[in-house]
């Protein structure tokens, strides 16, 4: 009996598998027409020239956004926005909203892999993975013809960042001062002044600030994060370090292509010791080992003294805190930075890809162009309709009349067009305007790593990182006792091979860039 079952079920399985294979093959071939071929032949009357696409035929464009759609946005999408897009590029927009968990994977991946037509935003990491699987459309031919305004309003380096082998796979959006992200300390200025200090210029100042506030409010935590790699860099080294990923750093002060194996460097030891000191002292709370989300909650509840900063964080973060502490003020400081230039990884906010199967990539590109075309459209996409959703005063400061979001601020922000709210102090705006003055573009900007040769090692290294390296890097355990074993595990996981492969690709790219 048993034998019969096994035989029968095997047969059944084979039958279904084969039945299915013919099915899915249809699916595969239906969706797998070469992306560039289909786009140029169907979209334009002159197959040879993608810049001469015919816009007289109305098309539907699908945009995938993460987070949810606000009520006002839905109204706008059904009326004014609809009319505008129809008029400008003869297209109809469909918005699809997914939870953040589906960003850079999850359902986004399924939609791409099954050949749906849509556009969504991406990052360099996800871009290189997806392009190697052939999931993104090559947008190179359309940029000049259909996104001239975007091209002039977004830095050229941002376009380079989303190129792979010379092809443009995603269109960057946004242009803002973003150098030295996470390299600054964002301090609760109100507390600082409350304990009789005015500013912070070094680690010693920062610890003094902690001690004084701690004496007054023993319940408060110091640092609302468990990662101060960037922020403390100015203290533990004279180099000007920047990180490509968890494992690899470069010194931006040197004009060479040398990569640094971060965890093996003496700087990492110094950093880990500093963090361990903070942890023991309570600047980083004990619970941070377990419950990192709680750090953010404490920060937003006004229960933390400082955090890592970016150029815009003081204004972006203030709304959250003032709910709990109405008098809160935030201010960025650098610790012992001296004259080291700030490092910029590009001024873009994000970038849009178009799925490989899209029949009208040029129409998508034309739509992205609208996002950053001019002040009027920028205001429309970001703030809604004037005098209904927002008002402007004589200085161009904006007052929002609705709490509903349209196109997210963080995505749209462009120094050419951006507006500040009335509550933002003038000195912050002044500081912001000059934020990038002493910035240099990282020598790694535009480099994309192809991990095919070392994906095995990369996965294993991530395993060692989450279990053994992270606790050392956050100061939860001390370097001297735990590092030797960790290093051994890193080596076993293939750290040397991984770094060597990275170095090989980076050197080749660096040399080609110099030419």
């Amino acid at each position, binding site marked *: 009996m048993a034998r019969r079952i096994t035989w029968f079920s095997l047969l059944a399985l084979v039958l279904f598998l084969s039945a299915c294979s013919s099915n899915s093959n249809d699916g595969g071939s239906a*969706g797998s027409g070469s992306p560039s071929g289909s786009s140029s032949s169907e979209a334009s009357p002159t197959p040879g020239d993608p810049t001469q696409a015919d816009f007289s035929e109305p098309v539907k464009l699908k945009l995938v956004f993460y987070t949810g759609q606000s009520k006002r946005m839905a109204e706008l999408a059904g009326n004014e926005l609809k009319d505008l897009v129809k008029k400008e590029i003869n297209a109809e927009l469909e918005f699809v909203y997914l939870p953040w968990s589906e960003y850079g994977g999850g359902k986004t991946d399924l939609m791409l892999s099954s050949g749906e037509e849509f556009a969504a935003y991406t990052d360099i990491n996800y871009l290189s993975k997806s392009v190697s*699987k052939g999931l993104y459309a090559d947008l190179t031919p359309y940029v000049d013809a259909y996104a001239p305004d975007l091209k002039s309003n977004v830095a050229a380096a941002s376009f380079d960042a989303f190129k792979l082998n010379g092809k443009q796979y995603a269109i960057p959006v946004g242009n803002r001062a973003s150098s030295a992200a996470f390299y600054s300390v964002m301090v609760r200025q109100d507390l600082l002044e409350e304990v009789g200090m005015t500013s912070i210029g070094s680690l010693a100042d920062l610890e003094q600030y902690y001690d004084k506030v701690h004496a007054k409010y023993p319940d408060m935590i110091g640092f609302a994060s468990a990662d101060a790699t960037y922020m403390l860099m100015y203290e533990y080294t004279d180099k000007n370090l920047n990180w490509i990923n968890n494992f690899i750093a470069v010194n931006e002060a040197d004009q060479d292509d040398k990569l640094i194996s971060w965890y093996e460097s003496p700087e990492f030891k110094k950093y880990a010791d500093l963090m361990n000191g903070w942890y023991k002292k309570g600047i980083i709370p004990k619970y941070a080992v377990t*419950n990192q989300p709680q750090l953010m909650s404490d920060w937003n509840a006004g229960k933390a003294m400082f955090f890592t900063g970016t150029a815009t964080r003081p204004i972006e973060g203030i709304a959250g805190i003032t709910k709990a502490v109405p008098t809160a003020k935030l201010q960025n400081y650098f610790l012992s930075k001296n004259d080291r230039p700030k490092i910029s990884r590009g001024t873009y906010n994000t970038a849009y890809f178009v799925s490989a199967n899209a029949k009208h990539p040029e129409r998508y590109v034309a739509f992205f162009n609208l996002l950053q075309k001019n002040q009027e459209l920028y205001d429309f996409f970001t703030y809604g309709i004037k005098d209904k959703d927002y008002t402007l005063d004589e200085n161009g400061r904006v007052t929002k009349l609705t709490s509903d979001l349209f196109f997210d601020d963080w995505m749209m922000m462009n120094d050419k067009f951006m507006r500040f709210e009335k509550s933002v102090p003038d000195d912050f705006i002044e500081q912001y305007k000059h934020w990038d003055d002493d910035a240099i573009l990282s020598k790694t900007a535009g480099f994309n790593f192809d991990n095919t040769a070392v994906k095995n090692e*990369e*996965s294993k290294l991530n*395993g060692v990182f989450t279990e053994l390296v992270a606790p050392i890097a956050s100061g939860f355990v001390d370097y001297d006792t735990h590092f030797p074993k960790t290093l051994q595990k890193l080596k076993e996981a293939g750290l040397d091979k991984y770094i060597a492969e990275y170095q090989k690709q980076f050197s080749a790219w660096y040399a080609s860039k110099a030419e």
Partner: protein
Amino acid sequence: MSEEAYRLSGTKGRAKSKWLRTLRNDSSLYLLALPGVIALILFAYLPMSGLILVFKNYNYNGGIFGSPWAGFDNFDFFFSSMDSALRATRNTVMLNVLYMLTGTFFSVALAIALNELRSKGFIKVTQSVMFFPYFISWIVIGAILFSLLDFEKGIVNKLLEAIGLQAVDWYAHPWLFVVILVLANIWKSAGHGAIIYYAVLQGIDTSYYEAARIDGASRWQLITRITLPMLIPSIILLTLLGIGGMLKGDLSMIMGVTFLNPLLLPTTDIIDVFVYRTAIRSGEFGFASAITLYQSVFGFLLVLIANKLAGWYDRDSKLF
């Protein structure tokens, strides 16, 4: 007609007409099974073609069947990190065995106790309350547990200190945390399991109990001699069904309850967690599906063995 008779009739003489008659006889059974069969084919068997992907390097132009073969490359990752793979396998099996033993014990005990109670209202209320945990996601449970177990502000440590004991850093002891996980699992699933067993008990013919009571059996004897034996087939069934998933684990539970605390990984690094923090973190889904296949095949072998054993005990309790 018994199965034996069927088989005999099928082998001899007038085989053909007999076969046709059985088919006609059984046709109503095939029809009853049809909706289920269709559902299984559409949503389980046809998608199984995806198993091929484990041996391939998926790319969009090739699709599922046209993508280049990768052979066993995707398996390399897991089996070349042998010590991690072994530890993850051990943790998974250990936690699952503990969950199964304690979960079954508590479910059965609750079901028997419920069965003895007389107050209808009490039964109804407690029965629905036991379902509450089933609805609360592990993220929320994790947050609640954290407020109980936090070293500095946690309620448990405050209680310990109040009675003069030392505070315990719960999130730093991997083996202590196994106990916490087991308790959390009982809490979340025992009520659920109790309902299954309780339903079986409600189906028992009351004449058994009456007869035993006339013979002078005590309440405890009724439980051990009648109630418990009645539950054995169901216990076997649920255990068999559980064994297939012996190598699978609940990522959302470990993530919710431990926040993937690195200090706890020596015991909480189950296969699914390991996959999450290595392959999935690196975006290597091929590795992830290879490991899933390993979990399935291993579970399948275990079930075949367990099913055989169950068959020796009682033919009727086999799964297939």
